[in-house]
């Protein structure tokens, strides 16, 4: 798979050597990408193989007398090295001139410690071997089954997406090579209440191949039940409630409410309150939070898009904020070690500090214990979206379903849609029970602000917490 990079690799090394003649640092990240998405719905059957993000290409990073600069392109051969070198020099000169007296942000050149690595992820069933026909047949079968569960289900959308990629990073001292793949599968069932369409969904993901299809098939009945339940849902009376978060909702809180606030490029910009809370309590002692690639999920990788090796970052240790996640440039500016979180949407985009697989550690409670401990509150399910506020630690997360709990039991009543608000440390300090089983979900993508979409996973166990709902 991805043999093109084997042929190009000597040329990439020559490119880095040639650039090092003019610049104190030079590196190149080469990406070869294979993407396919299959979907079946009332809109029809669709297979798209036109590329994920930017697809295949290259990004060069150099440091000149001003600072860091990058050039993204997708045409390369060994013969084109002099042309690329001249182009970078010309563009930099023109840009520096046009910027006039704007000062650069002082940035030490990041460390380029020697590293050689070649890694591939394991998988059970490569979707390309399974084939388009079998995949569409399988998705169609799942859809037919879903529509047959209840006549009130007006639509079932089923899709599977797969990305396999190879990334090669070359600098003067590093030669890194990784080939990974992730596959996601999602099912949404739709019901209508007049003009209002409501839907319940389930997505599954893995670091691997089409074996993920099993997970979606297993969840059909619960998605159908949620969709039907939504027909009788109503808006929630705003207020602060005891809540049980299912693992997906815990994951959204981990990621949106807290994770973005400890992306350390935000520390450089003075945009994150988290910087002031290092070694301080920000959460209940039940909370330990990780980010990294020691778990196998959709965002697992051996090295990031700046050539930093990945690992496990313990962000919160029993309630105490220990560190953030950091890309290489921000680490150089802050005088800390990078954590392997420098990620790009594609070779066409800048690297930012980004989360990978982010989750809370397990505790010892069960969901039943949590529900039975609540006089009046809600079980929150199916997070739909969230937005970060690292500066002020405000929460904005939305979930589709809040199931009413009264006197320690689910009443069957449902409220929807639900907006979660409040102050992040208040919420995390209110965690009073933590479930015993961690579940990670990587069905979605994460944006930085409103763009720069990268694959992430997040999760944790179910947890009991007090949250303001509206």
């Amino acid at each position: 798979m991805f043999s093109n990079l084997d042929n190009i690799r000597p040329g990439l090394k020559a490119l880095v050597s040639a650039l090092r003649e003019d610049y104190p640092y030079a590196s190149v990240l080469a990406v070869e990408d294979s993407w396919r998405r299959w979907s079946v719905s009332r809109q029809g059957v669709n297979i798209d193989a036109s590329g994920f993000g930017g697809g295949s290409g290259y990004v060069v990073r150099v440091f000149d007398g001003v600072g860091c600069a990058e050039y993204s392109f997708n045409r390369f051969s060994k013969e084109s090295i002099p042309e690329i070198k001249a182009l970078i020099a010309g563009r930099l000169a023109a840009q520096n001139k046009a910027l006039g007296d704007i000062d650069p942000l002082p940035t030490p050149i990041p460390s380029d410690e020697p590293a050689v690595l070649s890694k591939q992820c394991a998988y059970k069933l490569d979707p390309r071997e399974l084939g388009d026909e079998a995949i569409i047949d399988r998705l169609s079968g799942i859809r037919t089954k879903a529509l047959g569960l209840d006549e009130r289900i007006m639509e079932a959308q089923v899709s599977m997406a797969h990305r396999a990629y190879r990334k090669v990073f070359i600098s003067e001292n590093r030669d890194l090579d990784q080939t990974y793949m992730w596959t996601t599968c999602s099912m949404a069932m739709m019901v209508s209440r007049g003009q209002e369409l409501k839907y319940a969904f389930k997505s599954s993901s893995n670091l691997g191949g089409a074996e993920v299809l099993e997970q979606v098939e297993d969840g059909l009945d619960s998605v159908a039940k949620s969709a039907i339940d939504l027909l009788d849902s109503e808006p929630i009376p705003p207020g602060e409630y005891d809540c049980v978060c299912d693992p997906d909702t815990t994951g959204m809180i981990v990621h949106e409410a807290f994770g973005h606030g400890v992306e350390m490029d935000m520390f450089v910009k003075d945009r994150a309150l988290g910087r002031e809370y290092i070694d301080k309590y920000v959460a209940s002692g039940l909370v330990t939070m990780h980010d990294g690639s020691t778990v196998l999920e959709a965002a697992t990788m051996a090295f990031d898009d700046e050539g930093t090796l990945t690992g496990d970052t313990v962000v919160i240790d029993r309630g105490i904020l220990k560190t953030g996640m950091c890309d290489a440039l921000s680490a150089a500016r802050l005088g800390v070690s990078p954590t392997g979180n420098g990620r790009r949407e594609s070779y066409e985009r800048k690297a930012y500090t980004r989360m990978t697989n982010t989750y809370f550690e397990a505790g010892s409670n069960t969901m039943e214990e949590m529900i039975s401990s609540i006089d009046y509150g809600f079980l929150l399910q199916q997070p739909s979206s969230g937005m970060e506020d690292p500066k002020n630690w405000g929460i904005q997360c939305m979930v589709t379903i809040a199931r009413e709990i009264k006197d320690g039991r689910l009443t069957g009543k449902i409220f929807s849609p639900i907006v979660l608000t409040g102050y992040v440390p208040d919420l995390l300090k209110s965690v009073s029970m933590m479930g015993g089983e961690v579940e990670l979900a990587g069905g979605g993508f994460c944006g930085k602000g409103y763009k720069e979409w990268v694959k992430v996973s997040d999760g944790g166990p179910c947890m009991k917490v007090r949250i303001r709902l509206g």
Partner: protein
Amino acid sequence: MIERIKSALKDCGIVLWRINDNTEESAELFFVKKQLDTRRFKDVRKFQVTVFRDVDKDGASLRGFTSVTLLESMSDSQLREELKGAYYAAQFAANPAYELPDPVQAPIKEKSGELCQAPLAESAGKMARALFSADSQSDAFINSAEIFIIRSKRHILSSEGTDVSYTDGKVTGEFVAQCREPEDVEIHNMFSYDSLNTEALGRKVKESLSFVRDRARAKRILKSGKYDVVLSGDAVASVLSYYDSRSSAHMIYPKYSTWQAGDSVQGEDVPGARLNLDLCATVPYSEEGIPMEDLPLLREGKLQAIHGNNRFCRYLGIKPTGMYGKLRCTNTGASFEELKSGPCLWAVTFSGFEMNAMSGHFGGEIRLAYLIDGGTVTPVTGGSINGSLLEAQGNLQFSSDRYEAANYSGPYGLRINGVSVAGTDD
């Protein structure tokens, strides 16, 4: 490369196809405060090839398609391999047959203006100076910013004879305004222009710095309840995008939307503004090579047209319009000052404002709002809005002040009465 692709298509026996030859170059600047963080440049060219395949299944005529992206660095055998794979897949993505877009041939449409002619680096420098021109006070300032100057060329060819091309240019970016006292807060802003609109960017910075000063002194005193809410700027565009979505062929064909031309989509009882909306063409041709023209969408609340890509429009038996990227609202009303003169909550910025076209719900967490009551104006923060446009759409009130953005042109202000707000001070 086009000839190589055509040759490969022929070798593979593919007779129905479309090639989108997309070239893009950019200059990108990233700032922390007023210091330069990173410079980036981009030169990419991609050939997205869509292959169509006709199949008969149980006596029905079907047509499937699959798209792949080809690069100039690929060998001829690689091109054939990719196209063969796509053609093979297309038979399994078969849907009811439909006609491809009518052929169009025209000389290249070159966008004129400084943005498309000046060196990218110069344009980036100019926008950077415009960005920082309004950043002159120490209490409220630009925390960080990104500027993207992008020039593109699109060439669309098809087996049916379409051969059109155009050039385009745009300026996009974002900046974060920060104020440290009395509370350290920020407001995130995005911008997008189709010209080197230095004046608009300067105005936006100035307005945002003013808002962030107010957010710094805003109190978390919003009580839960029903409010007459005034939205402004991008949030208005977001609410009105509901009508764009619900009238699109890809929503109507699968019956996610039941709208038909002539429907009074706001209902029959409309004491408020009856909507007048147009869809605006922002490029000369759609991705499928369909010539784009402005399209009346709603007149006095009645749906004038269904719009969308070729396949879904053909299924509905209407003329394909292409996919639009801009909505214009010609409704007007009192001045914005009058619109927010009665007791109301003017929600200025959100952490993320969402309009769900499926459910009709809109909302978001409030970063800055002004609680206006009996002549007193109190900046507030926190809490969230959770409204239903299905319930509110009969009683919309617009301002006469206009707002222009890349995806919207229309009233700056929109007043919606009786919206549920979850407060912070119960």
